[in-house]
């Protein structure tokens, strides 16, 4: 029943009888989730800012290599995965399920690269720099606390995203999901990517040893 969409006057989208955004509720629901999740991350970054400002000896210990190099490559991997995600949605919109599945796999590969590099970087910090969630040699335990809490929460989101994309990819290959379902998964993925664009400068670049 799409007749009323074409005949309706522009100002009457909120008259009832259909979605004012002319989309299905799943996409709108994902946007709402993203708004909520953005506030959770905002609170975490507020905690980081608050702790950093209130601790005068906040350290800036990250060496160019490996920390900054690693995190830059991780950022590149995540940005690339957003591009491949766009390609996956584009392929679905054209009805090319095989291509969409391939792009989704590429997205997951980039995401997995991010997680792998991140874990390596974590291990490097813990074992070589002796920065843990509980303490470090500068005596500002919250440096590690905020670092691992924020990046840990973000990594959890990436891992959930990988599982989510895996389910979507499977369904796409078996001819199940619609283009819009892939787009909704894409919204989540781009959001996780966007969060990293705040975490990377605030938590990594601002902690670089100059």
């Amino acid at each position: 029943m799409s007749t009323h969409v074409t005949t309706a006057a522009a100002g009457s989208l909120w008259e009832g009888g259909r979605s004012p955004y002319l989309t299905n509720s799943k996409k709108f629901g994902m946007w709402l989730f993203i708004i909520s999740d953005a506030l959770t991350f905002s609170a975490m970054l507020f905690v980081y800012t608050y702790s950093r400002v209130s601790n005068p000896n906040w350290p800036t210990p990250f060496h160019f290599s490996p920390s900054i190099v690693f995190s830059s490559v991780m950022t590149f991997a995540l940005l690339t995965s957003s591009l491949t995600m766009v390609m996956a949605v584009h392929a679905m919109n054209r009805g090319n399920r095989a291509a969409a599945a391939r792009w989704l796999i590429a997205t997951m590969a980039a995401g997995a690269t991010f997680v792998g590099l991140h874990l390596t970087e974590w291990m490097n910090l813990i074992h070589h720099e002796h920065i843990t969630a509980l303490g470090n040699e500068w005596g500002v335990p919250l440096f590690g606390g905020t670092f691992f809490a924020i990046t840990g929460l973000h990594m959890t989101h990436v891992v959930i995203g990988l599982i989510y994309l895996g389910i979507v990819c499977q369904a796409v290959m078996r001819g199940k999901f619609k283009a819009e379902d892939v787009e909704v998964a894409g919204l989540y993925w781009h959001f996780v990517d966007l969060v990293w664009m705040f975490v990377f400068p605030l938590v990594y670049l601002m902690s670089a040893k100059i």
Partner: protein
Amino acid sequence: MSAPTHSAHHAPQGFIRKYVFSLDHKVIGIQYYFLGLFSVFIGMGLSLLMRFHMVNPEAKVAWFAKLWPTAAAGGMMTPELYLSLMTMHGTIMVFFVLTTVPQSGFGNYFLPLQIGAEDMAFPVLNMLSFWTTFIALVVMVSAFFVQGGAPLAGWTAYPPLSAAGRITGPGEGMGQTLWILSIAIFCGASLMGAINFIATTVDLRCKGMRLMRMPLTCWTWLVTAILALLGFAVLLAAGLLLILDRTVGTSFFIPGGLMISDQIISNHKGGSPLLWQHLFWFFGHPEVYIAILPGMGVTSHLLSTFARKPVFGYKAMVYAILSIGFLGFLVWGHHMFMSGMNPYSAMAFSVLTMAIGVPSAIKTFNWIGTLWGGKIHFDTAMMFSLGFVSLFVTGGLSGIFLGQPALDLYFHDTYFVVGHFHMIMGVAAIFGMFAGTFYWFPKMFGRMMNETLGKIHFYATFIGVYCIFTPMHFVGMAGNPRRYSDFTNVEYLAALMPVHKFMTHAAYFTAAVQILFLINLFWSLWKGPKAPMNPWNSTSLEWTVSSPPPFDNFGGVHPVVNHGPYEFSVPGAPTDFIMQTDPPSVTSED
């Protein structure tokens, strides 16, 4: 013309799919209602134990010793046990009653019906949301039964008390961890519910149900959902960090050099308890509106219906709801005047707090304007709505005192605060639930409740709650601190004991008359007279279908709305009410 159909699903067969893991918003609404009913009686029982202890601090009660062999050894309640009763009373009441029943209970049942939808936008998410809430309640109540018992840091869980572990009290071990876990689970449930409510309201309104034709109940459910979406997200972050402090050993909320029970806390350093207060109250103040807004919606709806007059200033009501929701996020600092705050910040928070008085007053005057010159029908549902207005005004006025930093320095952490928030957030919201129960019971269960019993219950409860909470303002002004389990040995407080005895007896009385409500509820469930389709001559969509409604709400018909929600006593109309679905020709307005 087809309404959105993606929410449609077939009526399930079998008990489990129909009543336990149901996808039907009506069943889920009733599940939430009974979860809240169970919780409110636990919460009330805890408050009675507290009131008993306050006036009988030395009493030895045999069954206390049986229930709490260590915390009430010999039958005498320890101060720690008192504090854990207080914590659990506050937590259960705020989260599992005030947040759950008005929004998730009534909202789930009546939002889709009032906007002409077949179900919520995401039925599976709806079911998950209820069962997640249920798990959160089980985890919360289980805190009573672990070693050390329930936590004692209050419903606000202020660190370092809540963060430093068992050293700060017996309930601060496993009990506090379970508390945070339960709240984190509850955050998830609220998030799912909020997404569902917003998507349903925006997407699933039937044809003709434009935003300014929604009943005010739907407006308050929508704004409450937005508050929950934003507020619980921040509480979740704070809860995660508090769990890390407790279990991993980080120091987000624990400063260095802290002395607890003559011991230096040496393994934590650099954190700030104030940080928790900022995060908590960023959630906590909107939470107050989460509790009260649906009650405001029900009251507006009922005053209009039972005064047979349109709501006075419908648009002003909508804008007032929206501005209360918006301002609710800007005033968290007024909970922290005493926590060490720059006086300039305090002034800003104070001015913003006073600003909330404006939309609140608009609502109150519009309620009075709605009643003015109306043909008022004093049914029990209406009585509770009038009681809501009374309590809202009483509680609101003491809020103006507390919003002034200069006065709050004196009133902070006294019984004045306890009296204030119980009036406005506790009892007013509960009256909104009672009003909703008496009004919607016929639709939910197909039977009428008993009016005589209802009125006796109303008058007894109304007088009872005023007798409990009004004197609290006076003992607060006299300087009586809250959270003390025993003040018989403090000279200036001992003089207030007769007032405390009066409040305790009033609490016993008020609790006892709630049995009348239970009798009325359960007797009417099975034995009440059959309810007609529209017993109150209301106008909104839920009264156009049978009581209780069919599985898909409108029996396969897609309703079309032609009228605003409150067209009562329209000149020239054949009846004194025009249903929202009546043909447009019935009235010359709109």
